[in-house]
C-alpha cells in the first residue's frame, strides 16, 4: 500500500483550488478530473500529461464543489452564489441551472445510480435532492435538531449542512454539519434515521467505505483534526484516527476499500492503512491547505492500482499513483 507521486500542475488555477472530482471514463475519453477554484472557473484535466482540456466559466464567486455523474457525460458545479450549474462534460453546454433559495449550496454528490443529485444545503439545515431527468427539486431532507436543545439556543443556527455522501447502494445519505454532528437519512423513504455524534467541529467531508463488506462504514473528516470511522447501522464509533495537525478538509476511500486518503489544512496528504490506526504515508508536496483528495477509478492497465488527485490552496493540482 503506497502512494507514488506522479506529477504536479503548479498554477492549475489562477487562485486557490477548492474542489476536485473524477469523471468516470466514457467510450470516448479516459477518466478525467474536474477541479473548481476561487478563480470562478471549473477546469477539466486529463491525468495523462497532465493536460488541461477545458476551462468552464459561468460561475460567480468561488466554486466550492464539483461532482460528476456516474455516466461520465454530465457534471455539476456549485459556487458561493448558491447556483448549481449542470453541464455537458465534453461540450461544456449548460444543461441546467439549479437554485433553491434561500438555501446555499455546498457539497454536491450524484447517487451511484445517477438518478439523483444531492446538494448540502448549508444554512437551510437540509440536503436538497434533484432528479437528474427533469432537474426538478424532488425532496428536501431536513436535519432535525438534537433532542434536548431548545431552538432558541445559539447552537440552533449551527445546524449548517456542509457535506453529503451516498451509501454504495444509494439508499442512505449521510450529511455532516458545522457543529460536528452527522445525520443519516433513508433516501427511499426520505426519512431521517439518526445522528452520529463524536465531532464537535465542522465535518467538511464524508465518504462511505467501498469495500463490499463494509458498506455501512462511514468515514468523516472534521476540523477537530480527527477522522472518525462509524458504523452507520449500529450507531457506533469504530475507530478514531488522529495525526493531522490541522483541520481535516477532505477524505476519500480507495476503490479497493483498503485505505483512505485525507487532505488537511496542515498542508499534507495522508494515506491511512485501515488495518492500522496510524497514517501509512504522509505526502508533503503542497504548500498550503489541501482542500480535496479524490481517488480515481482503477487503472485499465493494472486494476489493483488507481490514481489519487489532490488540490490545494497553493493553486496546484497533484496526481499520485496508489498501489
Amino acid at each position: 500500500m503506497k502512494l507514488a507521486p506522479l506529477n504536479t500542475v503548479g498554477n492549475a488555477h489562477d487562485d486557490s483550488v477548492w474542489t476536485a472530482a473524477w469523471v468516470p471514463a466514457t467510450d470516448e475519453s479516459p477518466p478525467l478530473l474536474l477541479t473548481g477554484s476561487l478563480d470562478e472557473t471549473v477546469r477539466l484535466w486529463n491525468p495523462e500529461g497532465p493536460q488541461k482540456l477545458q476551462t468552464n466559466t459561468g460561475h460567480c464567486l468561488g466554486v466550492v464543489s464539483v461532482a460528476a455523474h456516474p455516466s461520465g457525460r454530465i457534471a455539476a458545479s456549485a459556487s458561493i452564489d448558491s447556483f448549481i450549474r449542470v453541464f455537458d462534460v465534453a461540450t461544456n453546454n449548460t444543461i441546467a441551472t439549479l437554485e433553491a433559495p434561500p438555501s446555499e449550496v455546498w457539497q454536491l454528490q450524484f447517487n451511484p445510480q445517477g438518478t439523483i443529485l444531492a446538494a448540502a444545503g448549508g444554512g437551510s439545515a437540509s440536503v436538497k435532492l434533484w432528479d437528474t431527468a427533469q432537474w426538478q427539486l424532488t425532496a428536501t431532507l431536513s436535519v432535525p435538531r438534537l433532542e434536548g436543545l431548545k431552538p432558541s439556543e445559539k447552537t440552533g443556527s449551527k445546524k449548517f449542512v456542509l457535506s453529503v455522501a451516498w451509501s454504495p447502494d444509494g439508499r442512505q445519505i449521510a450529511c455532516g454539519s458545522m457543529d460536528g454532528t452527522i445525520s443519516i437519512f433513508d433516501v427511499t423513504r426520505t426519512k431521517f434515521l439518526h445522528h452520529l455524534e463524536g465531532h464537535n467541529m465542522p465535518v467538511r467531508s464524508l465518504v462511505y467505505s467501498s469495500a463490499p463488506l463494509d458498506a455501512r462504514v462511514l468515514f468523516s473528516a472534521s476540523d477537530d483534526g480527527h477522522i472518525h470511522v462509524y458504523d452507520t447501522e449500529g450507531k457506533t464509533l469504530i475507530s478514531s484516527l488522529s495525526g493531522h495537525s490541522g483541520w481535516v478538509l477532505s477524505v476519500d476511500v480507495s476503490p479497493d476499500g483498503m485505505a483512505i486518503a485525507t487532505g488537511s489544512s496542515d498542508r499534507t496528504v495522508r494515506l491511512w492503512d485501515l488495518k492500522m490506526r496510524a497514517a501509512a504515508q504522509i505526502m508533503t508536496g503542497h504548500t498550503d491547505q489541501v482542500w480535496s483528495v479524490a481517488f480515481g477509478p482503477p487503472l485499465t492497465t493494472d486494476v489493483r492500482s488507481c490514481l489519487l488527485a489532490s488540490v490545494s490552496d497553493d493553486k496546484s493540482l497533484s496526481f499520485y499513483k496508489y498501489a
Partner: protein
Amino acid sequence: MAFVYIPVQNSEEEVRVALDQLPRDATDILDILKAEQAPLDLWLIIAREYFKQGKIEQFRQILEEGSSPEIDEYYADVRYERIAILNALGAYYSYLGKIETKQREKEEHYIMATQYYNKASRIDMHEPSTWIGKGQLLLAKGDVEQAFNAFKIVLDGDRDNVPALLGQACVHFSRGRYSDSLELYKRALQVYPRCPAAVRLGIALCHYKLGHLEKAKQSFCRVLQLDPENVEALVALGISDLQTNEASTIRSGMEKMQMAFEIYPYCAMSLNYLANHFFFTGQHFLVEQLTETALAVTTHGPTKSHSYYNLARSYHSKGDYEKAGMYYMASVKESNKPHEFILPYYGLGQVQMKLGDLRSALSNFEKVLEVQPENCETLKALGHIYFQLGQNEKAQELFKKATKVDPRDPQAFLDLGELLLSTDDCAALDAFKTARNLLKKGNEEVPIELLNNIGALHFDRGEFELAGEAFMEALGDGLWRDFVDAKAQSSFRNVEQSDVSGERFSPSRKVQSSLINSALYPIDASSSLHQPRDFQLFHRLEEQGTSVELPWNKVSTLFNFARVLEQMHDTEMASIFYRLILFKYPDYTDAYLRLAAIAKARNNIQLSIELIGDALKVDDKCQDALLMLGDLELKNDDWVKAKETFRAAKDATDGTDSYAAVCLGNWNCFAAIRNEKRAPKLEATHLEKAKELYTKVLQQNPANLYAANGAGVVLAEKGQFDIAKDLFTQVQEAASGSFNVQMPDIWINLAHVHFAQGNFALAVKMYQNCLRKFYYNTDSQVLLYLARTHYEAEQWEDCKKTLLRAIHLAPSNYTFRFDVGVAMQKFSASTLQKTKRTVDEVRATVAELKNAVRLFSLLSSASNLHFHGFDETKIGTHVGYCQHLLDAAKVHCELAEREEQKNQERIKVMQQMELADESRRKAEEQRKFQLEKRKQEDELKQVMQQEKHLERIKEQWKSSVSASKRKDRSQTEEEESGHGEKRRRKGGKRKKKEKTSHYESEVEADMENQEDVEYEDANTNYREAPDDQVENNPQDLLAAAGLEDSDAEDDAAAPPLNASRVRRAWSESDEDEPLQRQSEPEHVVDMQESDAEGASDD
C-alpha cells in the same frame, strides 16, 4: 652471674656484691659505698644495675648521693667519674622529659637535666660525653641548631665519636637533610659495626625519606633481625606493606602492626593504623579506643591529627556529624598543613555540608582542591555547594572540570546535566545523554529519571520523536506498550482480509493487541462525546484478565509520553494514557486538565468543563483548573462567572500568580470593549483596571510577554499607537526568539497598529504572515482583518477574494457574505464614479452589482429562517441601494454599450468606405483613364459629404452623452437624498450626525470630496473599530513552558485569553453599513500545557 667487688678500706679485702641480688633498699649499699669510700665508678656500676632492673628510685638515690657536695669534696680529684655520674643523671632527666607528656613537668625535667650537664661542664669544659648529653637534651627539646653545635664540638675533637655521630645524624634528619644524616649513620656503623639496631633504624628511615623504599625495607628487616621486638621497624614495615595495596601483603602488614601493638601498646603510629584497619572492618568501638590511646600517648602533631581523623571518620560513618565535625576540626588544627594531610579537610567539608554550613564547607573543599586540583569527588562536592549557593556558573565550571578529569563518571555528567537544566537545555541534554551512554556501557541500569529528563529536554526542543523514544525507554514494558502495539493491528471488524501485519508480533502480543482493540472499540456513537470521562475501557480489560498496572514511579513519565503523543497529534493514544493514569491515580489533576484541553481543542466545551470539574473535586484550590475554567466560561460568554473564577484562582495563590492577574487584566480589557453601546465611563474604568493589573505583573516579572502585550492593547485603546507599536514590536521579537512561545496575537496586534496608522501594506503583510505562521491560513477572523485592510486600501478585488476565502472557511458565518456584498457594492460605486472607464469595466461592475443584490437578497430571505445577528432592514437598505446602483449602472451600461456600438458602427462605416473605395478604384481602372478628371472631382465631393456626415454623428454623440450624464446625476441625487434622510434619522439616534453625509458624498462621485471623507473616516474608524480588534492573548509565559518542571505546575494551565473582536470592522460608519458584528467575543485560547510534571523533576 656478675659481681662487683667493693674494696674494704685499709685492707686487702673486698665486699662482693652480686649485681642481680642488689638489696631492695639502696641505702644499704650506699652505706657500704660511703663507708668503704669505694671508687666512684663502682657507684655508677651499681646505679646502672639498678636502672637496668627497673629500680629507678634506687638508681636515682645512688647517683644523687654520688653527686652530692660531700662527694665532690671528697673525690675532688676524681673528675671523670663525677662527670659520668652527673651525665648519667642528666641523661636520666632528659629521658624523663622526653617521655613526659605534661608540659610543665617536662620543662622541669629538662631544667634538672640542664643543671646536671652544666655541673658536669663546670668540672671539665671539654668532656665529650657531656657535650653529647647536652646535644641530646637539646635535640629532645627541639633545639636543633644548638644540638648541632654541641655535637660539632665533640666531632671536632674526635671525628669518630659514635654517639656524637648518631646525634649529628639525628640533627640532620630533623632538619630534613636525609642524605647527610644517612652518611653519618653509615660512618657510625663503620666505626662501630656492633652498634644497636636503632642505628640501622636511622638508616632505614633515611632511605625511606629519600624515597629508596626498597633499601628502607631491607634496612627495616635488618633491624628486625637484630632486634625482633623493634616496634618502630615493625610499624614501618607494616606501613610499607599496607601501602602495597595487595590483599596478602596488607594482611601481613596488619599482622606486623598487631605485633608492634603487642610489644608496645603505646605506639601511636601503630595504634592509628590499627584504628584505620578497624574502621574499615567496621569495628567502631575498637577504633575509638585505639585512637583515644594514641591521642593520649603522643604529642606529635601529624600523628595526633591522624588519630583525630580516625576518630572523626568513625563518628562520621556512624552519622554523628556534630562529633565528627569536632574531631575533624581537631585533626585539622593539629596538622594545620593541608599539604601534608588533606583528608580531614575533605571530611570536615563533607560534615559541614551535611550540617548546612556551606561557606565553611566551601573553604575546606577549596583547600582540598588546592592540594589536589583534579580530585573528582571534591570538584563535584564544590559544584554542589556553589549550586546551592546560587552560583551556577561556578558550579557548572567545576562539574565540567570533573567530567573532563574523569570522562567515564556517569554521576558527574548527571549532576552537570541537572545543573545545566536551568540555563542551557542543549548542554544539559548532551550531559544527560553522555551519562546514559556511560551507564549503558557499564551495563548499569539507566535510572528512569534520567531517561525522563532526556525525554523532557527533547520535548522542550520540539524533538518529539526523540522525546517519545526516551520516554518509551524509561517506561519499559507495560500496558502502554501493548496499546502502542495494538494500534498497528487491525481495528476494523470487517476488514480482516490480509494478514500482513501478523509477522511483526509474537502470537501472545497479537492476542493482547486484539484484546485491547476489542476493549477499545466499538463504542456507542452518542456516548463517544463523553469518552474521556469513561473508564470502561480499563474495566473491560480487567474483565478480560489483562492486568492494568501502573507503577507509581512511571506515572510522570507516562504523562510526559502522553504529552509527546499529543504534540504529535496522536490525541487518541494520549487520551487513553491520561485515562489510564486517572484510572490508577484519580488524584492526578494534571491528567484531567490535559483531557480537558484535548476536549477543548476539539470544541467539546461542555466535556472540558466537566473534566475540570473533576479536577476541582480533587483539589478545589487547583489554580490551573480554575484558570482554565475561567477561560472556558469566557468562551461560553459567562462573563460574571469567569471573573469570579479568575478571582478565585488569584486568591488561591495569595494574588502572587501573574497568570491569574493577566487573566483578570484581559477580562477587564474585554469588558471595556465588549459592550455594543459604549459607556465611556465604564470603558475607562475597565481599561484603567486592566492597565493596573498588567503593570503590576510587569513589575513583578518584567519578562512577562503577555502582560506586556496586554499593556500594549490598553495603550492602543487609548490611541497611543506609537508607544503601543514599540511595545508590540519588542514582544514580537522576544516571542519569535523563543521556541516554546506561540503568540499569534502579537502579530495581529502589531498589524492592527499598522492599520491604525494607515500603513496598509505593512498591515496586510503582518496579517498574512500571522495566518500562515500560526493558523495554517484557516482563521477566518484574521482573514476578516485582512479584508478590512484591503477595503481601506481600496483594493476591492483582494478584499473580495479574502472574504470569499473566509466564507469558504466559515460557511455558516453570514456576516462574511454581507461583507462581500458591501465590498462589491463599494467596488461598483467607485467604478461608476470613475470618469474614464471601459465597457468591460462597466460590465464587470454590473455583474458585481447583480451578485451583490443576489447575496443581499439571499441573506434577507435566509434571515427569516435563521438568526444571523444582523438587522433585516439594513439588508433591505443595501438591497435597495444596490438595485438603485444597478439601475444607474444599467444606464451607464447602456450608454457605454451604445458608445461602443457607435464606435463599432463608425469603424464599420470606415471599413465600408474603404471597401467602396477599392471597388470603385477597380471599376475606374476598368474604365481606363478617359474620364479621369471628372471622376476625381466626383470622388472629392463624395468624400467631403462623408466627412460632414461623420462630424454630425460626433456631435450627436456628444450631446447625447452630456444629456444622459445630467440625467444620471439628478436621478442619483434624488434617490440619495431619500436615503440620506433616512440615515440621518438613524444617525441621530446614534449621535453620529457628522457622518451622515458619507453615503451621499460617496455616491455623488465627487472624487476629491470623497477622498477627504474617506480619510477622516479611516481615522474615526480607527478610534473605534481597530482598537477593538487589538487583541490580547496573554498566556503566561511560564505556562507555555509546560513541561519544565514540577514547580512550574503552579504557573501552568491557564487559559490565555484572546480578546479578538471586531465590532464593526467593516462599515464605513456605524449607520452606513450596519455591519454590527455579532459580538461574539472570540477567545482564541490555547490551553497551555497544564502539566508540568515531568521534565526535570524526579
